[in-house]
């Protein structure tokens, strides 16, 4: 059950998307998000969707993963949809009238538009985490944030914390599974009962988990100290991030896409569609 979690899961590969410089990937992903929010009508949004699907195909990741990344966010999408549907008021006659609730054409369109936008957003972001290893990702974040060092912002420490956290997610999941089995073997009832009962039943799982997490943390700290780790100053990297021709091409493609979206935004109303 715990093994189904896919947040930030990385799928190794050799595709062109995998090989892009992770710094560029992060910036391009942000550009993609901006582009999505610039898209003002269904045509430009559809264009952005097509673009995203092409990227997805280029990365050679199974399409089933699209749905997997959407599943946890489904409640948010439904919630946004409903809010827009019920609270946006249009000028024309309402489509449906139910007591004090009335649904207008404008509300329905906006709610579909918002839902599609959120879905594209999540899928686009998941391409980044599916194709970039956590190490590369934190490396890139460290490099991108490095100008903040001037302001005494602990960039390296932040990146190291992220790396460690990501590294230990699977370990902790495995550990939770093991402790749950052990307590079930002692007759713990983890699946049934009301909310309070369930929460109480979790104590025998959470306490050992915290104890071992703290133990692990202190062991890791000791191991790092033994190897003379003392922060980011003067530290060099074994794997340098390098950017090349394909990254420049990627930026160019993204620029063209944004231009297309802007053009679609402007031109469609003119043609009166």
């Amino acid at each position, binding site marked *: 059950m715990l093994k189904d979690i896919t947040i930030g899961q990385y799928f190794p590969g050799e595709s062109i998307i995998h090989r892009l410089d992770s710094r560029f990937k992060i910036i391009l992903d942000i550009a993609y998000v901006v582009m999505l929010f610039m898209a003002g009508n269904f045509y430009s949004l559809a264009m952005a969707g097509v673009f995203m699907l092409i990227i997805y195909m280029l990365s050679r990741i199974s399409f089933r993963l699209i749905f997997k990344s959407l599943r946890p966010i489904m409640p948010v999408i439904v919630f946004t949809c409903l809010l827009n549907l019920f609270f946006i008021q249009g000028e024309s006659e309402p489509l449906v009238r139910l007591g004090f609730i009335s649904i207008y054409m404008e509300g329905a369109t906006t709610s579909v538009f918002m839902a599609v936008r959120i879905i594209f957003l999540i899928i686009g972001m998941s391409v980044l985490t599916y194709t970039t290893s956590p190490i590369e990702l934190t490396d890139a974040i460290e490099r991108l944030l490095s100008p903040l060092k001037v302001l005494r912002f602990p960039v390296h420490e932040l990146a190291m914390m992220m790396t460690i956290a990501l590294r230990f997610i699977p370990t902790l999941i495995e550990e939770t599974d093991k402790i749950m*089995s052990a307590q079930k073997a*002692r007759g713990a009832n983890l699946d049934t009962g009301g909310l309070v009962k369930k929460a109480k039943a979790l104590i025998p799982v959470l306490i*050992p988990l915290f*104890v071992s997490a703290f133990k692990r943390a202190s062991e890791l700290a000791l191991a790092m100290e033994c190897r003379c780790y003392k922060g980011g100053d003067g530290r060099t990297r074994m794997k340098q991030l390098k950017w090349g021709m394909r990254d420049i091409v990627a930026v160019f493609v993204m620029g063209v896409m944004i231009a297309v979206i802007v053009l679609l935004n402007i031109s469609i109303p003119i043609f009166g569609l």
Partner: protein
Amino acid sequence: MNVIELKGLTHKYSIGTPFESVAVDNVDLTIEKGEFCGIIGHTGSGKSTLIQHLNGLIKPTQGQVLIDGKDIWDKSVNIRDIRFKVGLVFQYSEYQLFEETVYKDIAYGPKNMGCEGEELDKRVREAAEEMGLDEELLERSPFDLSGGQKRRVALAGVIAMKPEILILDEPAAGLDPIGRENVLSRISEYHKKHGTTILLVSHSMEDIVKYAQKVLVMNKGKVFCHDETDRVFARQDEITEIGLDVPQITKIMMLLRQKGVDLGQDIYTVERAKERILRYMDNKGTVC
């Protein structure tokens, strides 16, 4: 009588993904009441998956698990009752401790069974005594104890449930030699005293030979053999072939035999080796 019976038990992990793998492959097995059976096998040979089937923590992909002749996945069976009947102690079991005091931690299992008052107190104190935990330890925090003590508290926590079948996954792993001896001999004594059926998973041939009556050898998800200890180790060559070790003393005897000193092929313990060597030395004058 057979307390445990497995019929065509198969378990696959990650079905329907590229990572699909068969952990336990069509296993038929019977364990008799009161048997002390050692389970050996390589990492990934399916030992852990197999034992987790026995108290219903894992549902078989195919096949049946019968405890006392009853299928544990039958609708009429409450799986929690099975877990009280079949006690399972995991590897590095000290990680399951969570209560404020040793006493409360040992009481957790029996309490889940609905045990209360005097009966509960009796069970806790008995289990603690059986695992050699002093009275004064009971009021201490389990997190303040030594590794070996923690392990014995975890064991006591399961023994206090008075299971009819006790399954132990590497109960002595990671302990020093004194700690090992302490834990294993207490389990052996417990077996003799209560006649509980015991399954002991271990990597150490020495431990298995010393305590178990029967041995179950697992290889690649299948049962390689399940027989009396003597008979299993008589198949030394085959066991070495699947990458498992025979006890060190047996190896020494084998090397001696190659050098021309034949003390017999059935030596698995240091005691017996000592006996044979002494006899050999006494006879030496007359033999040579």
